[in-house]
């Protein structure tokens, strides 16, 4: 009785291991590609990137250093993760080489309200973050055009989602700034 189950289990396990062996490289390649695309969007001059594993506040953090065709660093990119209005928002953030401005953001994952909150993934919203100053921190402003170089305009009717993006980016930036620029840039 259990013999049959064990045989079925063993065969299933074998098939799965085999399929995994074939599929996993493809799955990893897909992930790589997605990551690369996101990094190149937020660091437009980058042609390649280096991965740096750092420890910030006792947690592991992965920072991507974008490099151009001559292997010179053009900025760093990292992921900002945090709650939004309806679930998690995942953002790729690009920081300039002088650590004073954002080079851009790209919303990777979000579950905000369609037509309102999920407009944070539209270019009109994301583009506001290009060249945005990060000190003292990023702010959002409602109904008007930004008045200071560290402000963006929130989406009308989607204040919470816009605020969530701003908060998450600020958090991630302040964490990253704990190890950069004091750290030597990896050659």
């Amino acid at each position, binding site marked *: 009785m259990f013999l049959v189950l064990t045989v079925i*289990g063993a065969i*299933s*396990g074998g098939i*799965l*291991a085999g*399929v*995994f062996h074939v599929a*996993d490289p493809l799955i990893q390649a897909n992930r790589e590609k997605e990551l690369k695309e996101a990094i190149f969007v937020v660091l437009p001059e980058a042609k390649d990137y280096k991965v740096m594993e750092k420890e910030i506040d006792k947690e592991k953090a992965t920072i991507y250093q974008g490099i151009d065709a001559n292997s010179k660093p053009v900025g760093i990119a990292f992921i900002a993760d*945090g*709650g939004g*209005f*309806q*679930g*998690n928002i995942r953002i790729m953030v690009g920081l300039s080489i002088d650590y004073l401005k954002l080079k851009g953001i790209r919303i990777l994952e979000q579950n905000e*309200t369609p037509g309102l909150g999920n407009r944070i993934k539209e270019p009109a919203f994301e583009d506001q973050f290009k060249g945005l100053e990060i000190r003292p921190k990023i702010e959002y402003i409602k109904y008007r055009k930004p008045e200071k170089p560290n402000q963006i305009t929130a989406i009308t009717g989607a204040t*919470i989602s816009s*605020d*969530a993006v701003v*908060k998450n980016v600020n958090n991630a930036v302040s964490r990253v700034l704990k190890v950069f620029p004091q750290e030597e840039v990896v050659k």
Partner: protein
Amino acid sequence: MKLILIFISASLINNFVLTYFLGICPFLGVSNKTENALNMGLATTFVMTLTAAVTWPIYTYLLVKFNIPFLEYVAFIIAIAALVQLVEMYIRKSSPAVYRAMGIYLPLITTNCAVLGLALFMVLRDYNYIESIIFGFGTGAGFTLAMLMMSGIREELEFADVPKVFQGVSITLIIAGMMALAFMGFAGLIRG
């Protein structure tokens, strides 16, 4: 603090039934009487909390340690099926009264999307052990809440004049839609 957030999120804001459509089969099938709904809800919450407690170690100490992530689904579903079987045997032996009340629902819980779903979400969201258990309990509580609300409405509905084509599953779904809309009001309860 985070634990309370996880609980409120799982039971209200991201209610498994009304936001993620998990647990619909029993939600449609067993929600006609409040007593049944309550029993099913409690039994399911019990199983879900145990499931979190059992599948998390399986994931962390077996699948991840030995680098066999592709066995996740097979391992989880076997764990859930075994768990339900054990719970059923235990209840039948230890408390025939409880078994009479909710024993018949137990086998159904194995195929309840909410149970497997909670194990999958727990992995996706990277909860630690305590967080996972709270999550299991919270999602079960949310499920029970949805069941109770639906059964309350359906009991009232028996006195209403529902058109023939809508009777049964159809009107239940439409009501569920309105409940889902209502529950959307919870979104934004927790900021950030």
